[in-house]
């Protein structure tokens, strides 16, 4: 192969032809600090007199703390304090935006515990002058535990007489309050309780043939006539499948530094949401939100695991209060594995009917979700809704059981549930296409959503729909760019011991929320100060979204000054940077604020220069009479705004913005023209983003080892805001999905209930050599019709396709019937090829 010396840029296509700023690459404001090592992540901060904190983790998967003897540790010089569960304040209730009180659940996760529910759960913490001392102190503490029954696998817990992960049972039981009468606030639901769910021996009959048993679910819904659907089917495929538990494994562990000053707690920690972490911290610490300051300038990865506050920020905060000194808690990689959240494994069984043409006639889906010992994650339900949207079955039944176990707590991870749903469905589509003699792209084209496609069950008389889907275009263009037909036609598939396989997968996930606030100030020097409340995870949405302001006002980007990462900086109420909602939500909010600024500029011009506001336009850093008459610079307008006061300089805030925004506006009042608005743009459907993923793999059938030799992701993500950031997300999240296909997993020892895959070489996040050196991405760049800029989020949608396209390519190479699980490693392939059938238990995730 000749040496390719030229730089191969991901997939460079020109975007944003109609815009000045949007769709263009640019240098983000945080990049210089990052590349020179000056960027400060939580653990990089130091405070005078700072103490260090270490945790004592439970060695048992389920136990009761009977006695703690810390006397030896406390005698050590340098040991300042220990913190146990008895020192924790009771968690406070929380209040939603709608005014509904969410009662604190006494059974929920707390920072420390006297009844550890998984091995690795923090039991107590020690603060000392340095880590050496804290570590030795921990080793000197004796905790007497009373072992309690435990369970790792949801199926074991569901068996008749099976063990329960919690004393009271294995599932959450949420009693819903009666529906509110019109005009009244909905009543607060009571805290969820723990109940017991057991299936019968008869339910488990199927498990003997490797089929997922299907007993009583915890949730279900259906639409259409599935019996008729199956009756009309030419082919019915019924498969069981298991997906892995995977840690988020952000490269920055959730270390935190905390200290108190003048009654306020200052917390430095990495988070996916600068603004919304504040109320979360306040609730955990049971203090008023106005007494919380969060510093989170740079967050070293989140993927859903750092959505707001974590228990790791609470422990140093409480120890700091107790010791009256700043406390740093450096979380080790192993601790992060225990407390850093993970994606739940889903055990699934899908029965899918297909017509001759490959059109799905009905889907019957059953999933069991292993949610860990605390809050139930929504993966089981999300998996079904995504399947319903992505494959458009005319009839579908979903049954789900979200079961607690004594494994580390789960949280949403990029495309939570959606990824698993796609990964279970895609191999079935593959198999059906082969049985029906159809092309893999064609069969997906027949089933994929188009336009405002419906999905999910009927709720309040109608089904939800997506705002727009151009999945077919993404498939077509992707197939073209990937040279799908050409590759399919090229033979042979096998050379020596190597077999190549091609895979294509549909993928989608939620792509945005609405209703947040935009806020910025046009300063008297004409520069625009934008406080960004978005968490800085490196996806650059923290900055990218605000490019809309420059675009709308016609201000050069260089004149926009961004601040972020600190809640003393007067931030607007902002969405959590999770669930791919940010680009959608915050470009809308930025647009709303920019339109507010425009309106105010026009009003100021009219007031000063006469005429009506609508006679003025805003462009080129000026507001001026349409057609080129009198006008003024933005700087002058800002000075006028300050003189005018009221709503113009922030002395009055719109009534509909969040109270958090109002406080910020009040603090900014008088600094210039304060633009502030809530996103109230009409929005009927659910914003969803789509990706068509293509992969080629080469399998060595003698060793089972395989390599991904090519990959393309073609995205339907609405308007492209920042191509390089988008490309990074499309391929980055694709690789996150690929990781699920090629190796990432949790492994437990069933006897002791310990996770034994604690290190990277055991849990196997993908390396740079596990992906092809040239990956391709592209985006349709078709604006979303229901959002002003037309942009949607892309964090999650590529994940399912990343994983499923690899699995599909593998089954193309070595056959449909050799494995029924992810990840697929050399061992899976080799044992199954030897036996000619699936050889690894499709009902156990932890191997």
């Amino acid at each position, binding site marked *: 192969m000749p040496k390719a010396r030229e*730089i*191969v840029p991901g997939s460079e296509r020109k975007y944003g032809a109609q815009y000045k700023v949007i769709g263009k690459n640019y240098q983000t404001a945080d990049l210089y600090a990052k590349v*020179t090592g000056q960027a400060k992540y939580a653990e990089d901060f130091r405070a005078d007199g700072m103490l260090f904190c270490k945790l004592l983790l439970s060695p048992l998967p389920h136990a009761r703390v009977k006695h703690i003897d810390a006397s030896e540790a406390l005698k050590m010089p340098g040991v300042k304090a220990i913190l146990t569960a008895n020192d924790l304040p009771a968690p406070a209730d929380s209040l939603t935006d709608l005014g509904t009180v969410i009662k604190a659940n006494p059974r929920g996760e707390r920072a420390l515990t006297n009844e550890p529910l998984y091995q690795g759960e923090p039991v107590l913490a020690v603060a000392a002058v340095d880590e050496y001392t804290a570590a030795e102190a921990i080793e000197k503490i004796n905790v007497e535990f009373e072992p309690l029954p435990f369970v790792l696998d949801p199926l074991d817990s569901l068996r008749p007489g099976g063990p329960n992960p919690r004393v009271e049972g294995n599932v959450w039981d949420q009693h819903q309050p009666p529906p509110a009468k019109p005009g009244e606030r909905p009543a607060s639901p009571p805290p969820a309780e723990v109940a017991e769910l057991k299936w019968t021996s008869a339910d488990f009959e199927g498990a003997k043939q490797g089929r997922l048993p299907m007993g009583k679910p915890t949730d279900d819904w259906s639409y259409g006539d599935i019996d008729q659907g199956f009756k009309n089917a030419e082919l019915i495929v019924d498969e069981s499948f298991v997906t892995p538990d995977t840690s988020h494994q*952000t490269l920055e562990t959730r270390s935190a530094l905390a200290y108190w000053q003048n009654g306020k707690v*200052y917390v430095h920690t990495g988070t996916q949401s600068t603004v919304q972490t504040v109320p979360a911290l306040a609730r955990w610490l049971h203090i008023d939100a106005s007494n919380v300051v969060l510093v989170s300038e740079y967050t070293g990865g989140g993927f859903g695991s750092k959505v707001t506050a974590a228990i790791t920020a609470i422990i140093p905060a409480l120890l700091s209060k107790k010791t009256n000194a700043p406390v740093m808690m450096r979380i080790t990689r192993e601790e992060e594995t225990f407390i850093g959240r993970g994606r739940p494994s889903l055990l699934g069984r899908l029965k899918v009917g297909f017509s001759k043409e490959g059109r799905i006639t009905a889907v019957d889906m059953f999933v069991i979700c292993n949610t860990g010992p605390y809050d139930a994650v929504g993966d089981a339900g999300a998996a079904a809704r995504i399947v319903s949207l992505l494959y458009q079955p005319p009839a579908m039944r979903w049954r789900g059981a979200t079961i607690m176990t004594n494994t580390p707590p789960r949280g949403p991870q990029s495309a939570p549930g959606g990824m698993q749903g796609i990964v279970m469905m895609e191999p079935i589509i593959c198999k059906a296409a082969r049985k029906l003699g159809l092309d893999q792209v064609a069969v997906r084209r027949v089933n994929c959503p188009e336009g405002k496609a419906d999905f999910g069950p009927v709720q309040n008389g109608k089904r939800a729909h997506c705002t727009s889907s151009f999945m077919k275009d993404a498939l077509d263009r992707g197939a073209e760019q990937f040279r799908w037909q050409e590759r399919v036609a090229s033979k042979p598939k096998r050379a020596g011991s190597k077999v190549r396989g091609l895979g294509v997968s549909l993928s989608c996930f939620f792509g945005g929320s609405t209703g947040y606030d935009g806020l910025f100030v046009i300063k008297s020097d004409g520069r625009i100060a934008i406080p960004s409340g978005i968490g800085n995870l490196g996806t650059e949405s923290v900055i990218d979204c605000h490019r809309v302001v420059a675009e709308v006002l016609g201000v050069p980007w260089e004149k926009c000054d961004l601040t972020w990462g600190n809640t003393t900086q007067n931030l607007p109420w902002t969405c959590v940077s999770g669930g791919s909602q940010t680009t959608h939500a915050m470009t809308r909010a930025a647009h709303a604020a920019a339109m507010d600024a425009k309106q105010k500029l026009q009003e100021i011009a009219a007031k000063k220069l006469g005429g009506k506001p609508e006679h003025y336009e805003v462009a080129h850093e000026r507001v001026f009479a349409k057609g080129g008459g009198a006008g003024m610079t933005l700087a002058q307008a800002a000075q006028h705004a300050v003189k005018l006061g009221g709503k113009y300089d922030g002395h009055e805030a719109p009534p509909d913005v969040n109270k958090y925004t109002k406080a910020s506006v009040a603090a900014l009042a008088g600094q210039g023209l304060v633009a502030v608005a809530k996103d109230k743009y009409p929005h009927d459907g659910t914003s969803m983003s789509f990706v068509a993923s293509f992969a080629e793999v080469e399998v060595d059938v003698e060793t089972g080892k395989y390599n991904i030799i090519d990959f393309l992701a073609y995205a339907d993500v609405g308007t492209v805001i920042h191509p390089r950031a988008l490309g990074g997300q499309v391929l980055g999240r694709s690789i996150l999905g690929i990781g699920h296909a090629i190796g990432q997993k949790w492994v437990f020892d069933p006897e002791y209930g310990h996770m034994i895959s604690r290190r990277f070489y055991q849990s196997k996040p993908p390396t*740079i050599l596990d992906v092809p050196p040239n990956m391709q991405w592209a985006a349709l760049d078709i604006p979303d019709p229901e959002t002003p800029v037309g942009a949607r989020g892309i964090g999650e949608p590529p994940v399912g396709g990343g994983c499923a396209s690899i699995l599909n390519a593998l089954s193309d190479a070595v056959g449909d019937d050799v494995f029924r699980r992810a990840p697929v490693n050399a061992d899976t392939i080799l044992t199954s090829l030897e036996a000619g059938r699936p050889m690894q238990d499709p009902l156990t995730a932890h191997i």
Partner: protein
Amino acid sequence: MSEADKQVSETAAKRVSRRAFIKGVITSGVAVSSTSYLFRASTLAGQRSSAGLGERLITLNVNGQQRRVDVVKQETLAWTLRYKLGLTGTKLGCDRAECGSCTVLIDDVPYYACSVLTHTVRDKKVLTIEGLASPHGKLHPVQQGVVDEQGFQCAYCMPGFVMAAVGFLKTNPNPTRAELAHGISGNLCRCQDYDKILTAFMRGAEYMRRSSRA
């Protein structure tokens, strides 16, 4: 605070630009800064042997400067850099030679600073991300490549990746994309932005070649 400690903290304080210092104060409201944080003398940090402070006080050559620093025997270079010298650009991702975030150059060769005892680099030259750009702020070609291609997302892995790339390119200035990937394969990116990272470093390699020709 011993005399030696004072010396160290003064050196470190000088290194922090006034601007960064002010920013630190403003952002946090108290004296939280990027200046070096010193371990207070702890009985445990001491050695069990008779080895006293005299042996613990060593001189390191970091980023071209001689730094006197008090280092316990079991201390890794990553800890010394981060906690004693205030060079927090070197990140700890796993502390186990499994992620590469702590990669620094020791005598021009990339090492995991988490897995090197500080006492073993006494007579070697250590280069960290902070010492890569010129003192006037001109970025190293590899850094410039990253800036121009918007390489990396969260960038927690970036300092280590950049140091690994610089080390590799010193001996392999003209790699293919696949060769470069192999050269920097000892670094993990959990945002999995590998494609863009490679593109950025390919550009950086081109800049390096250009600047060496110039």
